[in-house]
């Protein structure tokens, strides 16, 4: 047999774990159910609730409006297995006695899950092309020149970052338990609170407790408040920093939880 190399690549464990985790989503029907549900809800909400068609505007802001809700539900669904499944199967003992650091394992798992969510998001691209088609004024190249593709790309980037934040929270929930259902419910509730922050009724409730100044500060922590600038074509460092901070704080905390198990 081939003996262990004296200095294997630092990336070998990370890439092996990322590949296994990403492929793992497609080994069960869960991935296909997930992709179907995400697409069905993303499109239905935009057209039937958001009135994307009736608005008569070649813009996707009504499509992205519902993405924080979708990610709050579906990112914990995809992230619940990250550590909970390893614990349930007992494979965590195997994985962490192989020559891999907890950080490498956690990052590989996290990026694989994020990539999976990116696939779900990319499958909604026909919505963007539909908007382009509907906004066509008859000229031959309107599909390319008509809608503002920069704004649409910004919306997709923002949605993906939002998904990463929800996944960070889901990773913490998954590291805390061996039960995927508990991991999902806990992750969903935490994300749900971040979705509610910034919505009228919830803000009024908070204003009663904190006063209007306090609500303004807290509102900055809402998912939609941070996603909205992307859908309007505004590139601002603050929402990018917010989404990445939540994502990597979640990744870091989940790693610490696993290290101290």
């Amino acid at each position, binding site marked *: 047999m081939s003996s262990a190399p004296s200095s294997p690549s630092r990336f070998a464990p990370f890439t092996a774990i990322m590949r296994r985790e990403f492929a793992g989503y497609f080994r069960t029907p869960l991935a296909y159910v997930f992709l179907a549900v995400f697409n069905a809800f993303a499109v239905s909400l935009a057209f039937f609730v958001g009135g994307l068609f009736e608005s008569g505007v070649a813009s996707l802001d009504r499509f992205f409006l519902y993405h924080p809700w979708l990610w709050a539900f579906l990112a914990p669904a995809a992230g619940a297995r990250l550590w909970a499944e390893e614990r349930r*199967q007992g494979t965590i003992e*195997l994985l962490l006695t192989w020559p891999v650091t907890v950080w490498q394992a956690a990052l590989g798992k996290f990026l694989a899950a994020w990539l999976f969510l990116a696939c779900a998001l990319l499958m909604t691209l026909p919505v963007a092309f539909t908007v382009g088609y509907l906004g066509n004024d008859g000229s031959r190249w309107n599909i390319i020149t008509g809608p503002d593709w920069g704004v649409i790309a910004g919306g997709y980037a923002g949605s993906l970052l939002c998904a990463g934040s929800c996944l960070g929270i889901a990773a913490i929930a998954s590291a805390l338990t061996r039960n995927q259902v508990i991991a999902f419910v806990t992750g969903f509730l935490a994300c749900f609170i971040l979705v509610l922050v910034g919505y009228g009724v919830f803000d009024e409730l908070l204003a009663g407790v904190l006063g209007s100044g306090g609500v303004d500060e807290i509102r900055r922590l809402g998912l939609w408040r941070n996603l909205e600038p992307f859908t309007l074509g505004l590139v601002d460092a603050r929402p990018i920093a917010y989404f990445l901070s939540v994502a990597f704080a979640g990744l870091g905390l989940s790693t610490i939880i696993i290290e101290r198990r």
Partner: protein
Amino acid sequence: MPLIEAKNLSKSYGVIRAVSDVSFSVDRGEVIGFLGPNGAGKSTTMKMLAGHIRADSGTASIAGFEVAAESVAAKQHLGYSPEGAPAYGEMTVREFLRFAADLRGLADPAASVRETLALCRLEEVAAQTIDTLSKGYRMRVGFAQAVIHDPEVLILDEPTDGLDPNQKFEVRRILKEMAARKAVIISTHILEEVGELCTRVIVIAKGEVRCDESRDKFLARGPDLNAVFRKLTA
């Protein structure tokens, strides 16, 4: 330099002291039979050696690398099969071993998988998902991932548990083949394995080492090994 070294290892879970001041070392060519009743601290000691749990005090080293401080280097020299041989059930045997080979960064992972499948006689189930395998095959898959990189140190927690006599014979045969080049620890309840496989015996009870001696000395304690075991672990 011993390939495995445990120095004053201790571990408590709440008020329960699972392992108390355990020390021993294992050289190349030795096969240690790690004996003890359920809950004696065998698995906890092995988990500390493998780097899965941290010792409250004391140190463990594998091939000269301290497990807590140089964890990745230590684990490169270690093959470990936890109790019950957990594995990713949704993967096929071949995929699982390929994953282990890739993760370890082996130079020719495809060849390592092929050779390990042959060594552990797993070729006929290589394309089957692990969830569909019988217990005997699952235990062999657990053993296969532990030896795929031909490590210097093998730590196997009850590798023959639940196997039928033929399967036990197979695992012992493979272990005997590779034992001279390695330091091996196997935990077991099966006292007959001591005579067949081990060169040395460590008996542990209530978290403490009760006996650490050569196989011959252990076997000379009496004709009835069960009685010897009961007396040592009382």
